[in-house]
């Protein structure tokens, strides 16, 4: 790890994990003792071969594991210096601050485009149309979808194309103004054009939100991220600015992975 370089250039830390492990069925480690900073207004990419624990780690950052009965999280995940796993913290509040976009687009298919974006705001009790209108438009603009849907906000979310649905999912996550946005292979089910659009979007969004993106595509990590963490068999092997990690990897396993020795 290039500690020195990081300290010189590293921006403010938004989230940080300390010895974070996710254990399935009390015996199998999904990830083990991960220390990783997530910097404010930067894109952090998590790369690594399938099954290396990158998605597992991502889901631990907004306590999504609690939805599965067999997963246990140990260690700490600090958001603005506060452990999100502390006993008095409500996971519902954490998930409002740490939003998530999934592999497959997940709009609520029977709800209108408008209601999809407004869903998160309605959950916190904001129902005033004048406020919602503004929030919906801003979120759709931020997700680069506004121009395509502004004339049909009432049509169902399920009527959009796959790429549009994914941008709608992003807009929905942005509408509640999260501090961190987790993206789990957000382009894996999209065609190349839509992928390009979402990648451009990610570059623009980092100005307002800190992003963590899981990707199986190394080129995508190079294109969109500022920092990259390489995971291998449940361990975080290396974390550096993206350029450094791809041009001068420090760890043997990173070198092998980048050279295509395994995937």
């Amino acid at each position, binding site marked *: 790890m290039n500690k020195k370089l990081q300290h010189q250039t590293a921006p403010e830390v938004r989230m940080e994990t300390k010895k974070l492990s996710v254990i399935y069925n009390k015996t199998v480690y999904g990830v083990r003792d991960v220390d990783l900073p997530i910097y404010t207004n930067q894109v952090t990419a998590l790369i690594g071969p399938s099954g290396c624990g990158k998605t597992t780690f991502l889901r631990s950052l*907004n306590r*999504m594991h609690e*939805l599965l009965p067999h997963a246990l999280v140990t260690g700490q995940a600090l958001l603005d210096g506060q452990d999100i796993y502390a006993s008095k913290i409500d996971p*519902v*509040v954490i*998930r*409002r601050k740490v*939003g*998530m976009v*999934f*592999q*497959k687009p*997940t709009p*609520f*298919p*029977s*709800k209108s485009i408008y209601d999809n974006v407004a*869903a*998160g705001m309605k*959950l*916190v009790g904001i129902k005033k149309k004048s406020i919602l209108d503004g929030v919906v438009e801003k979120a759709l603009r931020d997700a680069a979808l506004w121009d395509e849907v502004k004339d049909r906000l009432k049509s*169902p979310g*399920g*009527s959009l194309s796959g790429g549009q649905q994914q941008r709608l*999912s992003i807009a*929905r*996550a942005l509408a*509640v103004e999260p501090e961190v946005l*987790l993206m789990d292979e957000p382009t894996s089910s999209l065609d190349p054009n839509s992928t390009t659009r979402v990648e451009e979007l990610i570059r623009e969004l980092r100005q307002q939100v800190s992003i963590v993106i899981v990707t199986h595509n190394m080129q995508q990590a190079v294109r969109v991220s500022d920092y990259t963490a390489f995971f291998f068999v449940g361990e975080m092997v290396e974390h550096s600015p993206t350029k450094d990690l791809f041009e001068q990897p420090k760890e043997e396993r990173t070198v092998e992975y980048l050279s295509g020795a395994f995937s």
Partner: protein
Amino acid sequence: MKADSELSKKTALHSTIPAIYRSPGDKVFKLIIFTLSSAIVLLAAAMAIILYIEGRPAFRAFGHASFLSNTVWDPVAGIHGALPFIMGTLITSFGALLLAILPALGVAVFTTEFAPKGLAQIINYMVDLLAAIPSVIIGLWGIFNFAPFMREKVYSPLYFWATEHAPGLLPVLGAPSNYNLTTATIILALMIIPYTVALSRDAIAMVPQEQREACWALGATRWEVMSVAVLPYAKPGIIAGVLLSLARALGETMAVAMLIGNSNRVPFTLFGPAATMPSVIINEFREAVEHLHYSSIMAVGFYLFVLTMGINLVASAIQRKLMLKKGIS
């Protein structure tokens, strides 16, 4: 030249296929399943046609419109109007559906989303068991336990209360009898709950996990995940399930015939006896010596068939329409 070579390629390919791949198995299999499945369609059609043909003398004597709208059913006088039974069937079925729908949805939501796995399995097993109890046994229990209990503890006190405080209600309530409309409706609700539970459980289980997670990730509570993501997604399936349960309730015969008191005197009252289309068929088919009586019973059967068929068609139409609207094909 080109066509030539392609032709020779084709024939070459054909001649190299081993004999086993050229066996008629596929064709025979296709023929068998085609015959079997069309036989079922034909059987259903034949039943409807026969019911219609056998009911034709009644239709000829009374006309469809007056057969359906006449409130008098008097085999001795040779007058047959089906309206009392149609009303009885609709009241008991829709009443049962209203009673069943909330508890059934509650059980379905609890077992799929909230209950620990073991408990959910036990509950589901018990609910399925409820569906397996023969209708006649539920009817027996109703006759000897439920109906007397309800009359003593519920209907009679209510009726006496109404005589003193709300005489306006009396024509609706009617004098409490052991076997009546309300008892039959409650028992019917009990009998369709397993179907409503099973069908809405399936609809809820079909909701992709990602839909739930997307809602969780917006900071939703458990209840909000249900109301925002799960139930709207499952709605077409639940509605279809409810309508299929309704079709079942319309046709349910034994327990209802045992408990409804079998009176075709309209207007029906809540605590008084009534009759349904299936109950009149089962009660009178043995005594139908008059040709017109027999034919009228067949005619009731025909319209019961049409009614349940219609509900089933509506169920699948609604399901298809709502599915398309969601963009799921």
